[in-house]
């Protein structure tokens, strides 16, 4: 295979950004006429492989090993290194998740090949394949180029849509790697949540998200009322969570959840890059903010320069009246 997509296990399911990575790999494969393979590691490897079986992936490699049952950087980095040596893919592609950031640099150093991270797209400039990456907190973008035959690439959230995955049928092949028990030096405890987040923001169709522009905790009902009448969920930017107004599991952005609802209704959020990476894949974005220069307006479909506290209660009233008719 020419392109190897590494699938991430998100509690028994293929991580959304791994599916986006497959879509990105399909794009790259089409441009360069390459074949795509995938790799699933760990105790859920079979389930993950089955989940993406009906896509245009030539072969899905499955690795099960006691030392890889759950994620650990030592074991996963060594495993991927050996798979790359065995299969010789030119491109190793993943989503730019927290797990990727944790072990992909280790693979890069082991094999002396570059890890080109957080990519939003690629194109040919002359003979050169060039990858685009936002830099300087997304105020600028950069063209990056690999200098070796093999490169590790991670795609930014929503760089590609999983709707663009090409259908097909793949075969599944179990392979093994040679791991010594002494290799895994870390001891990982069970992942946990500090606050039970029963809300599944990732599958919500409509999200009403609150930022600093809501001004104080007492104003939160304005957002909750709008969410209720629209049948949506409440989310927020980091400052609102840091102020203790909403629990962490409501947070959208690089340190919270990534979502791509049908409608993202942004209330008083300025649109710092750390927030935007978690929601820019939304199908439609309505943004209300007092500051006409707020970066959120650059990615919004509908931009309203105005006061959330004045406009939103009125909107909720009108929507409620319509609903009651």
């Amino acid at each position, binding site marked *: 295979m020419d392109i190897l997509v590494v699938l991430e296990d998100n509690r028994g399911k293929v991580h959304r950004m791994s599916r986006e990575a497959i879509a990105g790999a399909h794009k790259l494969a089409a441009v360069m006429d390459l074949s795509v393979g995938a790799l699933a590691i760990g105790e859920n490897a079979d389930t993950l492989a089955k989940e993406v079986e009906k896509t245009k992936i030539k072969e899905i490699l499955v690795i099960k090993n006691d030392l890889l049952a759950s994620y650990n*950087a030592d074991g996963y980095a060594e495993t991927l290194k050996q798979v790359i040596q065995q299969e010789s893919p030119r491109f190793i592609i993943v989503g730019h*998740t*927290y797990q990727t*950031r*944790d072990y992909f*640099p*280790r693979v*890069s*150093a*082991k094999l*002396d090949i*570059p*890890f080109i*991270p*957080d990519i939003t797209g690629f194109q040919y400039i002359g003979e050169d394949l*060039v990858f685009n*990456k*936002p*830099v*300087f*907190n997304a105020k*600028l973008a*950069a*063209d*990056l*180029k690999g*200098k070796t035959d093999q*490169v590790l690439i991670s795609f930014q959230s929503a760089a590609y849509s999983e709707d663009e995955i090409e259908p097909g049928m793949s075969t599944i092949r179990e392979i093994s790697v040679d791991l010594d028990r002494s290799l895994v030096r*870390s*001891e990982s*405890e*069970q*992942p*946990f*949540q*500090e*606050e039970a987040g029963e809300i599944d923001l990732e599958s919500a*169709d409509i999200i009403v998200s609150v930022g600093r522009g809501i001004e104080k905790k007492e104003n939160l009902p304005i957002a909750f009322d709008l969410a209720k009448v*629209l049948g949506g969920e409440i989310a927020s930017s980091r400052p609102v969570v840091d102020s203790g107004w909403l*629990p*962490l*599991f409501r*947070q959208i952005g690089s*340190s*919270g*959840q990534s979502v791509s609802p049908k*409608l993202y209704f942004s209330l008083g959020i300025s649109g710092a890059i750390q927030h935007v990476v978690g929601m820019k894949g939304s199908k*439609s974005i*309505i943004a209300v903010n007092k500051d006409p220069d707020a970066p959120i307006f650059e*990615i919004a*479909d*509908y931009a309203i*320069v*105005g006061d959330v506290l004045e*406009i939103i209660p*009125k*909107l909720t009233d*009108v*929507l409620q009246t*319509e609903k009651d008719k």
Partner: protein
Amino acid sequence: MKIAVLIKQVPGSDSTLPLNGDGSWIDDGLVTFVMNESDNYALEEGLQIREKIGDGEVVVVSMGPERVLRVIREGLAKGADRGIYLEESGQSETDPLSIAKSFASVLKDESFDLILTGLQSDDTGMGQTGVLLGELLGMSTATLGIETNIVSGAIRIKRELESGWFQWVKLPLPASVSIQSGINQPRYPSLKGIMGAKKKDIKVVSGSDHRTETKRQSLDRLFIPKADKQTEMIEGDADTVVARLVEILRSDLRVI
């Protein structure tokens, strides 16, 4: 406990970012520089670990043109014991592997127990130098630390996962750990600290003594990203705005 903290000097969040003549980098001369945000938290974590243990050394390490001596001195003023400065002349290196190899060649004989770095830099944001360096030096690694505890011969790290999940990981020392912003309250340098910093040692390593010629990726061009969305500006008084919003929700988006 011997701790190295890697700090980078980056443009401040309010700084302008004019491109240089050929668009290969920003025009450094017109930029105001600060210590990278998450590196500042990493430094504070290093100082707190040293204080808790009651002994040991915190060494601040930075690479770049001469101006980066300012963030090294800032680190010393906050309480670091000494500095190591890797000189760079000409264009700053952007290839993370080359950068990590430079650090590795300088730090390998120091035998640090712990290397702390910020999660990522606010300039290129590659987010990998600390992990690369850990691997090159044969250390165990972890990223996105939001709490740390030193236990005998090891460090326990509370890692931030996605979607509000966390995980405690225990790494044997030596280890390289990247720190998430918000882990602590970084201190400001005291007047005494600033005066004392002048007497602290900064080891200077010249470019020819650390630079590698094995670039694995290159940053060839910077540009201003173009907005790819057509944005409809909705203007008017609150009633006008609300009427248009209702229309959008009903006809364009069909969510009501």
